């Protein structure tokens, strides 16, 4: 019973897919709102928001095969790591720096994602280092003859570092099975794209011998479509691709930032009007998969899931100080 304006069937997406994608977008948004709440209450000193990026992250993330493919995200990617297997509880364990934080056991700042069993490669703060790790993993997969595809995500600011240049060059030379995904929200903290990127990000692909494409990151199905094409091409030996997803971040860069110094409220409102979540709701209604009543239900369920995860994380233990000595080296030796 797909209705008119049906875009998803040709993309190979079924009703369950769409509803799950919708849930993940919502989960990301609600986790974000909850963490800001904790921040205002003084219970979370540091918050990295995702709001605005949910379409780009869930759409691109959904194009990969969980359990087989590899995710090399950056700090903005909360909705992406939810797709990759993090729970709301996992997110809040990291937020509070608790012992069971799957990323680092409370060692890293929030939003420094990582989890071996979920194929999410540990990330750091220094920008763009992960894109080279992704290239190395992709080379390894190809060498071993595995058909996994490696995805790496970064902001447009990340394209400025030499690491990004090296990874693009290496991936192009060896036609590696990977996809470079730029979440272009037009700002690197306060620095506008026009002072960050000469030319256009996606246009750099040709110079590295790979296809480059841009898409509307606030349209989750567009983000899925262009990424899926790239993932399929990579898996079938067609080499790497660069994808630029245009989007916007709704909050300040982090809880330490104040975006009013560099963005007008008008600009923010303009982009609020393109919010990927209501837009996807409209689509789901248009194909009669959702109605307002069902949306309200799903929101309540997801809200409850967030509240539960947050509560469990708050109740969880902090790491034992003495554990701070562990895992410096395999033998955890310490300087005499």
């Amino acid at each position: 019973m797909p209705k008119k304006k049906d875009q998803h069937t040709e993309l190979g997406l079924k009703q369950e897919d769409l509803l799950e994608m919708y849930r993940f977008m919502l989960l990301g948004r609600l986790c974000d709102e909850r963490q800001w709440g904790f921040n205002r209450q003084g219970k979370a000193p540091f918050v990295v928001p995702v709001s605005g990026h949910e379409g780009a992250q869930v759409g691109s993330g959904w194009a990969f095969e969980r359990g087989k493919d590899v995710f090399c995200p950056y700090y903005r990617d909360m909705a992406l790591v939810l797709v990759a297997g993090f729970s709301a509880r996992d997110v809040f364990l990291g937020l509070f720096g608790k012992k069971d934080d799957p990323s680092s056991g409370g060692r890293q700042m929030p939003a420094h994602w990582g989890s071996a069993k979920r194929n999410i490669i540990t990330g750091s703060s220094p920008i763009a280092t992960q894109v080279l790790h992704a290239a190395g993993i992709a080379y390894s997969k190809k060498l071993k003859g595995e058909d996994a595809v490696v995805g790496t995500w970064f902001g447009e600011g990340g394209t400025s570092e030499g690491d990004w240049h090296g990874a693009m060059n290496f991936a192009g030379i060896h036609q590696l099975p990977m996809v470079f995904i730029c979440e272009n929200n037009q700002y690197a903290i306060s620095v506008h794209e026009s002072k960050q990127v000469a030319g256009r990000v996606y246009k750099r692909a040709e110079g590295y011998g790979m296809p480059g494409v841009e898409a509307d990151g606030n349209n989750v199905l567009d983000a899925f479509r262009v990424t899926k094409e790239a993932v399929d091409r990579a898996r079938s030996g067609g080499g790497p691709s660069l994808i630029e997803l245009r989007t916007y971040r709704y909050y300040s860069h982090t809880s330490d930032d104040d975006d009013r110094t560099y963005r007008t409220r008008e600009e923010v409102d303009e982009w609020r009007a393109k919010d990927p979540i209501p837009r996807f709701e409209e689509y789901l209604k248009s194909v009669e998969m959702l109605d307002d009543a069902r949306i309200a239900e799903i929101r309540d369920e997801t809200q409850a899931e967030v509240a539960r995860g947050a509560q469990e994380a708050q109740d969880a233990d902090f790491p034992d100080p003495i554990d701070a000595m562990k895992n410096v080296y395999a033998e955890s030796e310490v300087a005499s």
Partner: protein
Amino acid sequence: MTEKNMVQTIRDTLFEEMKRDERVLVLGEDVGARGGVFRATMGFVDEFGQDRVLDTPLDECLIAGISIGMAIDGLRPVAEMQFADFIFPAFNQIVQEAARIRYRSNGDFTVPMVIRAPYGGGVHGALYHSQSIEAFFAHVPGLKVVAPVTPYDAKGMLLQAIDDPDPVIFLEHKKTYRSIKGEVPDERYTIPFGRAEIRREGSDVTCVSYGLMMHYCLEAAERLTSEGVDVEVIDLRSMYPLDMETVLSSVGKTGKAMIVYEDNKFLGLGAEVAAQIAENALFELDGPIVRIGGPHVPAMPYSPTLEHWFLPDADRIEQEMRKLAEF
């Protein structure tokens, strides 16, 4: 005289200097409209314009590399590394180029540039917003490395750094930005590098430190007066050039030396200080040379329990001072 905190002092000093000297410009990530993530260049872009208050792309290698070119062409770039932890992509340009250009050209080219880097822990910054970096650069001939910890020094040493004909790594401890206040003269003055400051006279133990730890050392020393233990606290201020004269004459007086630093102990700056004492004042010592430094782990973790464990504090310094005094 005006009372200011560290970051305000740095901001005002830079602002005045840019007014005074057209050749001076600031560059880095978010130094423009945002005024720097620590507000060290707040309001600059309105006063001096985008060309002299340059928001660079997110590439520290670029920041250092173009600063070198600007300095060679007669400008006086003051580059900001947003956090000291992010200076490493620029390591090659700083260590191989900036530091070596005067030497390799036999004086034909020089690089008068300043790199400001907010560094240090105790700010919930975790592994990548808490690091100490002075040891990497103090080891490199051709560079100067300084770390003022009072507003008075911050102004005089920042102006000295801008005047200096060679590249200077100017370290600002993030935790002192707002916590440390002091009187700052309104007129322009400079403080020559390579002169340590005795912050507290004492006769029993010489305590050498710098950065945030120096303030903790003063606190610990004050506490010990009640016990009749009299500690001399020396603020190195400059890591290279290093004022061993002041250190050695103090050790000659007290016969006991300890060095306190936040960086991990192994090959941190305290190693050089201890080594030079052992080379030059061994027989004036009547106690072992004590070093208190960070543990051998890759920078402090985020979780409050772990961060507190990591950072040396006044209590621990006090204990070690007492032990050494009693030795």
